[in-house]
């Protein structure tokens, strides 16, 4: 099984800004690559280079063995793209948009019309299909744009933040659609801000920052880099801390961390549930009042934050208005402390 997307040493600069700084990517045929990275990392730039929309300053890239720089026309026949911003015509209806795309892929009149209706149905847009896109909500445009990417059933699909702006229901629908496509043999390169999404859909993940890949691997491999499961206990009285520490040390496989300020004790474990039960029995025997207890697994958020420590800070200013940044969860904060 060969790599259907191969990029090596891609560079692109805009004035002083280095958008891509020697990016290497490979995507085996029939798999899903999730491209993660903070705002401005170069995800969109990478997608635009691979989909022939942008000439890189340096490096090479091929899709299905075809060079994106030398032979963009041929590459365009094979790919489908849904960019970060919906590329649909405002004045056309949803149906007219899809039909137009079909005709531009040089599908026959009838097949193009049938395909347009089919996709409207699949993306829950049948009712709005004959209304101008001007009247669509943000999420509806997004869905239409994704539908447009699928018109010609492309072999290789590029989705730049495909579910940004979708409600939870639509997002789940989208995930189902994507899974269905991948089962059918489509290769997918997707970027996302939702780490859960990458976790669920991607076979491989590449984390990029400042135009470079800084980590790659399967989701569980990346999580393992950050650390395994751990037990966290918050006790009621500060005086109980040493005892709690002892209790956890008995089940821990590594160093136990004590956070006096928050009265929290954290212990890495291997066999999560039974270690947790053992720890709880000990705490109970010692009659220690526990406020909170939990088994935590590292999430991709942890990975993300560990690898790109500055991510959250850098993200904040430019995404305040579009809600793209995932709010920091309790888990991530815990993870950050753990990492320090």
């Amino acid at each position, binding site marked *: 099984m060969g790599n259907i997307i191969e990029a090596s040493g891609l560079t692109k600069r805009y004035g002083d800004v280095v958008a891509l700084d020697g990016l290497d990517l490979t995507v085996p045929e029939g798999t899903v690559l999730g491209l993660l990275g903070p705002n401005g990392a170069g995800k969109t730039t990478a997608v635009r280079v691979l989909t*022939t*929309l942008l000439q890189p300053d340096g490096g090479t890239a091929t899709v299905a063995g075809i060079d994106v720089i030398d032979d963009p026309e041929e590459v365009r026949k094979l790919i489908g*793209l849904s*960019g970060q911003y919906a*590329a649909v015509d405002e*004045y056309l209806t949803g149906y007219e948009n899809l039909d137009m795309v079909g005709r*531009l892929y*040089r599908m026959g009149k009838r097949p193009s019309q049938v395909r347009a209706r089919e996709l409207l149905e699949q993306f829950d847009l049948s009712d709005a299909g004959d209304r101008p896109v001007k009247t669509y909500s943000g999420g509806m445009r997004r869905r239409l744009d994704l539908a447009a990417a699928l018109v010609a059933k492309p072999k290789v699909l590029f989705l730049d933040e495909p579910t940004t702006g979708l409600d939870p229901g639509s997002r789940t629908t989208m995930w189902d659609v994507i899974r269905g496509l991948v089962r059918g043999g489509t290769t997918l390169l997707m970027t996302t801000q939702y780490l859960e999404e990458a976790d669920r859909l991607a076979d491989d993940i590449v984390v990029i920052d400042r135009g470079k890949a800084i980590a790659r691997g399967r989701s569980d491999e990346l999580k393992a880099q950050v650390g395994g499961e751990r037990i966290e206990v918050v006790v009621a009285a500060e005086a109980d801390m040493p005892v709690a520490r002892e209790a956890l040390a008995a089940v821990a496989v590594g160093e136990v961390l004590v956070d006096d300020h928050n009265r929290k004790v954290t212990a890495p474990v291997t066999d999560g549930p039974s270690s947790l039960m053992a720890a709880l029995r000990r705490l109970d025997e010692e009659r220690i009042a526990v406020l909170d207890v939990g088994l935590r697994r590292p999430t991709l958020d942890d990975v993300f934050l560990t690898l790109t420590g500055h991510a959250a800070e850098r993200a904040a200013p430019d995404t305040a208005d579009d809600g793209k940044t995932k709010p920091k969860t309790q888990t991530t904060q815990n993870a950050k402390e753990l990492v320090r």
Partner: protein
Amino acid sequence: MSSITHALGDGAVVAKRNLIKIKRVPEILIWTLLSPIMFVLMFAYVFGSSIEIPGVDYREFLMAGIFTQTVIFGSTFTGVGMAEDMTKGVIDRFRSLPMTRSSVLIGRTASDILYNLISIVMMTLTGLVVGWRIHTSVPEALGGFLLLLVFAYSFSWIMAYIGLLVPSVEVINNASFMVIFPLTFIADTFVPSQNLPTVLRVFAEWNPVSALARGVRQLFGNLPEGLPVSQAWSLQHPVLYTLIWVVVILAIFIPLSTRQYKRAASR
């Protein structure tokens, strides 16, 4: 060969998209309908009553000039349309599709023929109302209208190029007027150019807009006997001279605009 068929086929799809927009925003069309009427009335009554050329029915002479100027102004729609398109998300869609690069331009220039067609119809009707008449046969008259449309079409490609050069839609009107005003005023459009100072006269004589106006006058039978005749070859063979310009403009600006489109699109 097949690449030309593809370019035309893709162009037709894009043209259809542009026409749908006119259908959805009919206001655009209303202004296209009204301004030629205004032009004809204004020129016919303001210029028509204050300018006199001995032995000539000036109003009849004027009509071809108004036709000429209006269709050339009409071609600025193409520049605006292209400049606007380039700011729209759908251009990214077009660029990711295996369509011919020139087809966005082919479609735009083709759908803009409609504007000129409509404004010609409006001007003809208004002209007839204010007393203008065609004195030739039907084929000659159709030839006159066709000459206007063909020239306006080639001019659209120049405007498309300008539309792709300017950084935003707001700039396009001023930029295109810089081209259009000298071309349409230093010409035989509204007054015969015989009395202009030498430099301007030579410019006017060889200006394709003069040839177009004169060609149209000829084809409509609106060239009165008493009019002084320029000896310049361009005005002795106005239809041929106009058509040569059409070919030259298309030969230069189709490739130039296509190249500019590719360049502008991959910024």
